[in-house]
C-alpha cells in the first residue's frame, strides 16, 4: 500500500469508529415488576420519540422480570448489569430486599442505582451510588401509626408483616410509633416469607383469635387476599390498612372482592395529579386496559431523571452519580410527575404519603384531610 494512502485510511477508520461510537444507543438496566417495567418502557419510548438523549437512542436492558423480588436473583442480575460496560445506570429493583442486596454490587462497581419503590431504612446507607424515588420507611411507620390511631378511639390492631428487610424494618418503626401512641397490637407476627405465605388457616385462626378490628398488613396484595378470604369468614368487618407494597388487584383476579375496602399507602395523591400525570395515566389505561400503580409512575420518573442527568453531564457513571447527588441542591430539582423532586444526603426524597381505598371500580383516593380527623 502506498505510504501516502495508509495514514489517510487509518485516519478515516478512526473517524468512522468514533462516529459509530458516538451514534451508539445509550443503555440503562431495568430490573422491575411488570408495572414498573411498563413505566420504564413508556419513558424510554417518549424520550426516543423526542429525539433521544443528546441525539442518541435510549435502550433498556431488562433483567429478571417476575422473579425480581428475590435477593439472590437480584445479586445475579446486579452482577450482570454492573459488569456490562455499556450500562450507564440501573432502575431497580422491585423491593427493598432485592434493592438492598443489589446495592452493594452497584456501589462496588460504581453504577448508579435508582430504586423506584424500595423503602427500607437500611437502603439509605447502601452507598453513594444508590438513590430512590420514595421516602424511607422511617416516615411510613409514623404515617401508619397515625392511620391506626385515627381509625377508632380504641383500636385493636393486628400487625402482620412480610419477614424480610422491608417488613421487619417497617414493622419495627410501626411498633415504636404505636408504643408512643400507647397502642399495643393484639397480634404481631410475621405472616409470610420470601413472598410466600403458608399455613394460612393457622395464621387466620391466630388472627381471628386476637379479635382485631384493624389489620395492618405489611406485604403484597396477593398474600393478603389469601389471608383475608379466610379471616373475613370469622370477622367480616375487620378493616385493613396495607403498606405501600400493596397494589390494587385486577378485577378479574380470584377473590379480588375480599380486598374491597382495604386502604393502602400511596406515594402520590391520585386526586391531585398533575395534567402530565393524568395524561400519562390515561395513556396507560388506553394501552393496557388496566389501572396503573405507583410503581408505573415512579419507574417512569426514574428513567426520566436518569435521562436528565445524562443530558446534563454525559455518560460517565461518576458524573451521573454526582449529578443525582446534587438534585435539589447544587443541581435543579427534578420536575417529576408529582412535582419537584429533591434528594437528601442519603439519596432519599422527602416523605409524603397518601391513602387510597380499593373499590370495585378500582382505586379511590382518600383525601388527606381524613388523617386530621
Amino acid at each position, binding site marked *: 500500500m502506498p505510504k501516502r494512502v495508509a495514514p489517510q485510511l487509518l485516519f478515516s477508520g478512526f473517524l468512522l469508529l468514533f462516529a459509530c461510537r458516538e451514534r451508539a444507543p445509550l443503555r440503562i438496566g431495568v430490573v422491575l415488576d411488570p408495572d414498573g417495567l411498563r413505566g420504564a418502557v413508556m419513558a424510554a419510548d417518549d424520550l426516543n420519540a423526542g429525539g433521544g438523549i443528546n441525539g442518541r437512542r435510549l435502550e433498556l436492558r431488562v433483567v429478571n422480570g417476575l422473579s425480581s423480588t428475590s*435477593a*439472590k436473583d437480584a*445479586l*445475579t442480575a446486579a*452482577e450482570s448489569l454492573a459488569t456490562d460496560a455499556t450500562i450507564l445506570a440501573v432502575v431497580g429493583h422491585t423491593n427493598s430486599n432485592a434493592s*438492598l*442486596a443489589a446495592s*452493594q*454490587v452497584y456501589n*462496588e462497581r460504581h453504577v448508579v442505582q435508582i430504586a423506584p419503590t424500595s423503602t427500607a431504612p*437500611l437502603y439509605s*446507607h*447502601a*452507598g453513594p451510588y444508590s438513590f430512590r424515588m420514595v421516602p424511607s420507611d422511617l416516615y411510613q411507620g409514623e404515617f401508619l401509626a397515625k392511620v391506626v390511631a385515627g381509625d377508632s378511639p380504641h383500636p385493636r390492631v393486628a400487625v402482620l408483616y412480610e*419477614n*424480610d*428487610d422491608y417488613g*421487619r424494618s417497617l414493622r419495627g418503626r410501626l411498633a415504636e410509633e404505636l408504643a408512643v401512641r400507647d397502642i399495643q397490637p393484639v397480634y404481631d*407476627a*410475621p*405472616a*409470610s*416469607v*420470601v413472598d410466600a405465605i*403458608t*399455613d394460612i388457616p*393457622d*395464621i387466620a*385462626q*391466630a388472627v381471628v*383469635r386476637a379479635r382485631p378490628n384493624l389489620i395492618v398488613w405489611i406485604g403484597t396484595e396477593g398474600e393478603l387476599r389469601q389471608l383475608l378470604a379466610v379471616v373475613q369468614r370469622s370477622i367480616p368487618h375487620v378493616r385493613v390498612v396495607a403498606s405501600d407494597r400493596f397494589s390494587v388487584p385486577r378485577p378479574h383476579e380470584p377473590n379480588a372482592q375480599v380486598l374491597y375496602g382495604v386502604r393502602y399507602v400511596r406515594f402520590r395523591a391520585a386526586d391531585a395529579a398533575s395534567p402530565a400525570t393524568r395524561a400519562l395515566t390515561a395513556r396507560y389505561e388506553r394501552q393496557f386496559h388496566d389501572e396503573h400503580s405507583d410503581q408505573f409512575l415512579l419507574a417512569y420518573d426514574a428513567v426520566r431523571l436518569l435521562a436528565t442527568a445524562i443530558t446534563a453531564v454525559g455518560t460517565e457513571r461518576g458524573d451521573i452519580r454526582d449529578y443525582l447527588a446534587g438534585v435539589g441542591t447544587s443541581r435543579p430539582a427534578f420536575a417529576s410527575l408529582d412535582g419537584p423532586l429533591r434528594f437528601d444526603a442519603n439519596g432519599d426524597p422527602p416523605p409524603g404519603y397518601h391513602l387510597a381505598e380499593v373499590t370495585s371500580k378500582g382505586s379511590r383516593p382518600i383525601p388527606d384531610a381524613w388523617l386530621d380527623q
Partner: protein
Amino acid sequence: MITIVAAVFGVVATVSVLAVAHLSRSLGNELDRTTEQLIDEQRIADQIVSSSYGQQLAAYRYLENPSAGTLAEFRDGGAQAYRGIRKYLFRSMPLEARLRVEGIKEAHEIFEVAAQRAFDLAASGEPARARAHMVTLSRDAALLERAVQRFLAVREHQRQELRESEEMWLTRLQYASVALAAALIVAAVMLAVLLHRRVTTPLSDLSVAVRALAAGRDDARVPPQRFAEFQLLGTAFNEMAASIRQARIESQIRNADLERALADLQRAQRALVQHEKLSAVGEMLAGLAHELNNPLAGILGVAECLQMEMSGYPDPAVQELATSLVDPLVAESLRARDLVRNLLNFSREAATQLESVHLADAMNVAVGLRRHAFVQSQKQLEISVPDDLYVSAQPQKLELAIMNVVNNSLDALNTGTGTMLRVAAAREEEDVVVTFEDDGPGFVHSDRVFDPFYTTKPVGSGTGLGLSLVHKFVQEFGGVVFAESAPVRGARLVMRLRATEPSAREEGADAARVSEAALAG
C-alpha cells in the same frame, strides 16, 4: 560514563526491588486484611448461630409456658441475629459469598416464621401440632446453621484462593524480579558497550588529540569517526588544529622575520652608533690632520732635501750619518704623512661618486695585491665570487676596503692559529653579500672592531683604522658590514652591498671578459 550508566541501572534495579517488596507487602497486607475479616465474620456467624439457638430455646420455653417475656426474648434474639446478618451486607465480598449471606437471611426468616406458626398453634390449643412444628423449627435452625457454615466455608475457600494467588504472584514477582535484574544487567552491559563505542571512544580520541595539541603537537588530529555526531566534532577539531598549525607556522615565519628585522635594526643601530662615533672621531681627526699636515709637510720637505744633499757627499761618515739618521727621518716623515692622509681620508665626508662596480674585478685587484703575502705566510686564500655580480660602490674604495679586510685576516692568521681565509659572494635579493671567513683566533670584541684606533695588535703594528675605513666606505656605498666570531673558531666579516646592474661600460667589459675566457679556453 560507564559509572553513570551503572549508577542509573543500579537505581532502577533498587527501585524495582523496592517495588517488588512493596507489592509483596501489599499482597501480604491484603491477605492479612482478609484473614481479619474472616475472623470477624466468624464471630458474627457465631453470634447469628447462638442467637438462633437462643431463639429456638426461647421458642421451646414459650411453647411449654407462654409468656410475654419469653416471646420478647425470642424476638430480641431474632433482632440480634438479623443485625448480625445485616453486618455482612456492607462488607466487600465476592458474589458467591453475598449469595450465601442472602441464603443465611432467608433461612433465618423462614426459621422465625416457622417458630411463629408453632406459637400460633400452641396459643390456639393445639400443642401436638405445635410440637410437630418445632421439628420443622429445628430443621430450619439446622438449615440456618448449615447456611452459616457454608458461608464461612466459601469465605475460607476464598481466603485460601487469595493466599494461593498471592503465593503465585509472589513467585511470579520473584521470577520477574530475577528476569528483570538479568535483563537490566544485560541491558546495562549492552548500553555500556554501546556508549563505549559511540561516546567514550570518540571522546577519548578527542581527548588525546586535545592533549597532544595542548602539548604543542600541532599535527595532532582526531581519527575518522563512525558516527555523524562525532564526525562533525572531529572535523571541527582537525580544522582547528590545522588552523593552529598554520597560525604557528606563520607566527614562526613572522618571528623569524621579526628576529631578522631586529638583527638588522641592531646592526643598523650599531652602525649608527659606529657612524656617530666615527663622525665624532672623524671631525676630531680632520682637525688634527689639518693641523699636522703642514708641519709634517715642512719636516718631510726638509728631510728629503737633507737626504738629497747628503747623498751628494762621498764621505763615508756622512753617508753613515745619512743612513742612520736622515733615512729613518724621511721614512718616518713619510709614514707620518701617510698616517695624516689616512686620517684625512677617514675624516672626509662621503662625497663618493657611486657606480656599478664589477665585484669580481675589485676582488681580484684587492686580493691580487695580497695573494703573495698569503703564499709567503703559508696561508690559504680561497675566493669564490661569481662573475655576474655588480655592486654600487666606488671602485678604489671598494678595493681598499676588501684589501683592509684581507690584511686584517692575514694578520690574525699570522698570530699562529688558523690557516685559511675564504671569501665568498652571493646575490640575496636586492643585495650582494660578501663573506670573509677565516679560522683564526676570532674577534676578541666583535662589537668594537670597527671603532677607530681599536686594535689588538702590538703597538706600532697597526693604526687601528683599517676596519674603521672598511665600515666607512661600505656605509658610503649604502651597504652594511658586521663582524662576528665564528661558532667554533675564527672570524667572520660580512659586507652587504647594494646590487646593481652592470653599466654600459661594464657590459662592454663583460663582453671582453667573456671573449678572453673563450679565447683562453
